[in-house]
């Protein structure tokens, strides 16, 4: 049905994260960490934009057959990203008053150029 293997999907995700990172850096953000893991889960990208700490989730899709990348981030996921942001700060001994959760949606079809959309401050 999907016609893809787990390895292919993993590769697509990694590709999306690289595209997203380039996009955000080009937009003037500073990457602090990538694929940071703890027992609670993983943050795709941790960045800084001015004085704001940005916890960024990257969603990559090769088609919209299974909904938009945006729709994949529900309430539970959003809560987890917020908690992970706190965990990241604790692990690095910093306290940042302004934390934001961003979403980068990458649509990378089989052919043609990728489409990147950066949504600031979801939830």
């Amino acid at each position: 049905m999907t016609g893809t293997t787990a390895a292919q999907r993993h590769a697509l995700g990694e590709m999306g994260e690289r595209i997203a990172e380039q996009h955000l850096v080009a937009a003037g953000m500073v990457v602090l960490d990538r694929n940071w893991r703890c027992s609670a889960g993983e943050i795709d990208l941790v960045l800084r934009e001015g004085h704001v700490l940005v916890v960024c989730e990257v969603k990559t899709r090769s088609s919209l057959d299974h909904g938009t990348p945006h729709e994949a981030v529900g309430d539970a996921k959003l809560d987890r990203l917020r908690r992970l942001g706190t965990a990241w700060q604790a692990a690095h001994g910093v306290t940042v008053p302004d934390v934001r959760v961003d979403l980068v949606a990458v649509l990378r079809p089989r052919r043609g150029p990728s489409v990147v959309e950066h949504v600031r401050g979801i939830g």
Partner: protein
Amino acid sequence: MAVSTTRAVSLNGAVGHLVDVQTDVSPGQAGLTLVGRPDSMLNEAPDRCRMAVVNSGLTWPATKRITVLLSPADLVKRGTHFDLAVAVSVLAADGSVPVEPLEATAFIGELTLDGNLRAVAGALPMVLAAAERGIRRVFVPEPQAREAAMVPDMEVFGMRSLAQVVAELRGEEVPEAPPVAPMSGARLLSWRGEDRLEETDMSDLLGMEDVRFAVEVAAAGGHHLLLSGPKGSGKTSVAERIPGLLPDLTRSESLELTAVHSLAGILDPSAGMLVRPPFSAPHHDASKASLIGGGSGAVRPGEVSRAHAGVLFLDEFPLFRSDVIEALRQPLESGDVTIARQEESVTLPARGMVVLACNPCPCGEWTKDQRSSRCQCAPRAVRDYQMRATGPVADRVDIVRNLRALRRGDRPDPLSVPESSASIRARVEEARLRQADRFGRESWRLNAHAPGPALRERWPLPPRGQRLLDDQVYGGALSRRGATRVHRVAWTVADLRRLSSPGIAEVETALCLRTGDPLLVAMLERVS
């Protein structure tokens, strides 16, 4: 534009509130939030809207955060007819539909997943409410277009699908769509119902002179009536002929009644506005909700409201459940009915003539004369029945008539043809005109609806007549309420006799009508 507003109507009984459906579409966590006290039906609207939009070939802003606000925010909104307003509002906020045509426009309709519209109940009161709030254009499902068009100065768009609505708003050519099925509660039987009543006439009733007179007075003044008598004495035949004696509805009555039928989902839009007084005869098994109104979710009008401005006939009324009979007190007295709910109370019009009928006992054979009585009921059952038949509801009736089975001496004169409904109706209409003239600027138009204090102060009885009533009251034969009712009936008798005010004869006639005493021949006199 990221924010847009459309308008819908929320119904609270027969009262419609204009509701602003405001939508914001902006970046953020994707999804739709509906705020502003929706009920469970309305909460499902976003799911229906989304699929309807997608399946209509339009774009749903799936990557955006959509916030839909229904305001006024304190009002509970219920029903499925908000779908169209929500869908159009979202599309306009996302830029798929221009905002300008939404001005002074209301949207009413339920959507299906394939983007077609579905018929909804209550379109007429919704559009009426919208018109009062300055709405000039309304989009409704096609089956409701005729109903909506009954509202003057309203531009009505009867639509079949969301795609058609969007095309109309964009000023494009309206695409084809399958026709919308009428209300789900369509009549399955070609039942003749009220048509049958059209064929009945007072000329079918032989004899019964004093009942004929009582019915005429009741029709002329809008008085409640109690018919009591053994089975087969013609109580139902008399009651069924009363609507035929009533004039056509006034414009406001017609609107109120049509709105009530629209709310109940029983309006036949092809028949247009209702102009004839309705007749409703619920069975004595009827529940309180069916008679008074209620039900879960949206309030459905009961039989008392469906008989508004017409006749509500309760045959064998002592057999109705006691809570149902008790609940009838308010509409009998005030002409409207209030249904109290957890969070709201709904008032519906219920100003019909109530005609009660009862037997002398449960089996209907009891007579005072024990020897000729063929009654099989236990004495206690007879006592219980008669107690209920004379309870507080019966006290709220203006005119009481005792019918009796025909006897040998009653055989009518073959040469005399009883008067027809049409000629009685002419007198009733004239009497009603006199009342309308007299009450001019007041909020009521018929004697039966005139408040007691106003009557006593401005339209008093002659001193002798008032003394007669006072004697009855202090003698315990008549309650205070009963005296007020006699007062009203006396005015109606005077109106039928083309008198400028009632004299002692009219008061005596009214008293007889109220107490159920037989009328003297002189009392039956009518103007020709």
